[in-house]
């Protein structure tokens, strides 16, 4: 690359980086107010929460390119030996801060790293928090800051007609570990669903597109509960989840998803591997 081009690219890059950070931020919308004390009270009452104690780890992108599709991963390291009870994801400054709560069942697995990943909308610069409840009922929190905005009002569907035609299509995929005897396996569930949050205004009709989103997802392995997830519209269009589960005899996964219209979508993994 010629030197002149390089320096031009670099100077543009800086300007664009600054621009991209603010690209979708509405002028006055960044809430300086710390919402967490209220959210904590609403969600966990007066229960004690241990912070940054290493029992739960949260991974977020270093630079967010699309605020309507932000990948988040929560890990519970192998050093945590016991069962896990619940996991709550909160984005403080989202219109509905609660992203999802997972209540784990007997098939959630122990004896290895457990993890959960999904993709979320970020409406405004905000902390995202993962709160883990361990077997003894104690709460453990980690948080990261998300420098992104506008993900809720943004129209995410790039091809709405194709998505509508495919609505309800579900893929349930298992990732067979290198060592089949591993006690914790990974899987993925993806479903074609607009997860409309009711915040996209269509100026053709002067109306907001009505909210319709995945409210509940139940995952079972060989008939036993892995987790039940209660979700909100903070989860991106075409909801996508990766998670771990405890190895069973058949390792057959069943998924039942219910949206806010009461529509039920069902999916099942293939009997062998992915």
């Amino acid at each position, binding site marked *: *690359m010629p030197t002149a*081009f390089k320096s*031009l*690219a670099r100077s*543009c*890059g800086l*300007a*664009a*980086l600054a*621009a*991209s950070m*603010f*690209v*979708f*931020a*509405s*002028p006055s919308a960044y809430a300086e107010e710390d919402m967490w004390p209220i959210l904590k009270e609403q969600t966990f009452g007066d229960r004690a929460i241990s912070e940054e104690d290493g029992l739960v780890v949260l*991974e977020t*992108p270093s*630079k967010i*390119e*699309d605020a309507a*599709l932000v*990948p988040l*991963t929560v890990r519970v390291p192998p050093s945590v030996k016991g069962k896990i009870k619940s996991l709550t994801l909160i984005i403080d400054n989202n219109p509905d801060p609660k992203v999802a709560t997972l209540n784990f069942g007997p098939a959630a697995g122990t004896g290895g790293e457990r993890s959960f*990943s999904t*993709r979320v909308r970020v409406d405004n610069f905000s902390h995202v928090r993962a709160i883990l409840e361990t077997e003894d009922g104690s709460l453990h929190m980690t948080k990261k800051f998300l420098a992104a905005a*506008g993900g809720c*009002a*943004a*129209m995410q569907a*790039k*091809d*709405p*007609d*194709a998505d509508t035609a*495919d609505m309800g*299509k579900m*893929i349930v995929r298992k*990732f067979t570990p290198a060592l089949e005897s591993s006690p914790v396996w*990974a899987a993925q569930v*993806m479903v*074609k669903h607009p997860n409309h949050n009711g915040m*996209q*205004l*269509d*100026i*053709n*009709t*002067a109306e907001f*597109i009505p909210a319709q989103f995945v409210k509940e997802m139940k995952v079972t392995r060989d008939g036993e509960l892995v987790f039940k997830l209660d979700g909100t519209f903070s989860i991106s269009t*075409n909801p*996508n989840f*990766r998670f771990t589960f405890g190895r069973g005899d058949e390792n057959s996964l069943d998924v039942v998803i219910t949206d806010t219209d009461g529509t039920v979508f069902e999916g099942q993994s293939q009997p062998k591997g*992915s």
Partner: protein
Amino acid sequence: MCTPYPISRKTFLTAGLALAATPLLRYVPAHAAAMDVTEVAPGVFVHQGRYEVQSPDNRGDISNASFVVGSEAVAVIDTSGSAALGQELRDAIRAVTNKPIKYVINTHMHPDHVLGNVAFKQDAPTFVGHYKLSRALGTRANTYITANKQMLGDAAFEGTEIVLPTLAIKEPTTLDLGDRTLLLEPQGTAHTDNDLIVTDTKTNTLFLGDLLFSVHVPTIDGSIRGWLALLDEMGKRKAARVIPGHGPKTMELPEALEPEQRYLSAIAGDVRQQIMEGRTLAEATRTAGFSEKDAWKLFDQYHVRNVTAAFAELEWE
């Protein structure tokens, strides 16, 4: 004309979002000289935008804008990224001809191609676009207005509003400019879900909009699969010249398409490989398509977003 609501209703909404003026009272911002345009074929004029992201310095002048002059009328093809730039484009047209501006055509929904539309309202033209343009732009209007106001700054953004199409193109359609016709062909989802190819049949000039990027890294806001398939089709066309949405004023087929095909193929190949290996979206954004890094301007600004879009599409294969 088929606006579902009176103009005042739409204007009210847009005004509420971004502006405090009605079209009648709209302050026409002070603008510099007429836009710099080049006659690339008889009666075909092109302005070349900069290879940059919108900023107060470039005032949104980052995409190509064109017009075609017939014996009876003028058609504008894309209007650049603000009211002021639209006005400067209009001045450039008026420096060439006094014939009525009958059509304002948008090749797709992106703000750097449509935000100058407002400057042509005074000509009462037919605003023309792909039949899905109205929905695509309508549902993004709020976001586009907010983002562009922020990037351009209040001064450069002054007077800018969204103008939706009044003629929706669902089938190949010709527009008569007097002694020359334009052929409008709506495409399947590719760069966006509302890409329109415009051909000036007299000079066999193809206006490809953002189906063709050159120098400026392509941006995926539709379907990488659809786009690659369409590029194969486009490569079979014969044209005297093509006008990219971002790139030099004119290029030639099929060579013009090759870098873009290579870029999109690199992303698709790498992303498919990673999906097959069970890798995540976050992992893919760190490596996929980086072999193309030195081949494009603005790679750092758009590439990771492109990989994100490609991954979210290809994981459904």
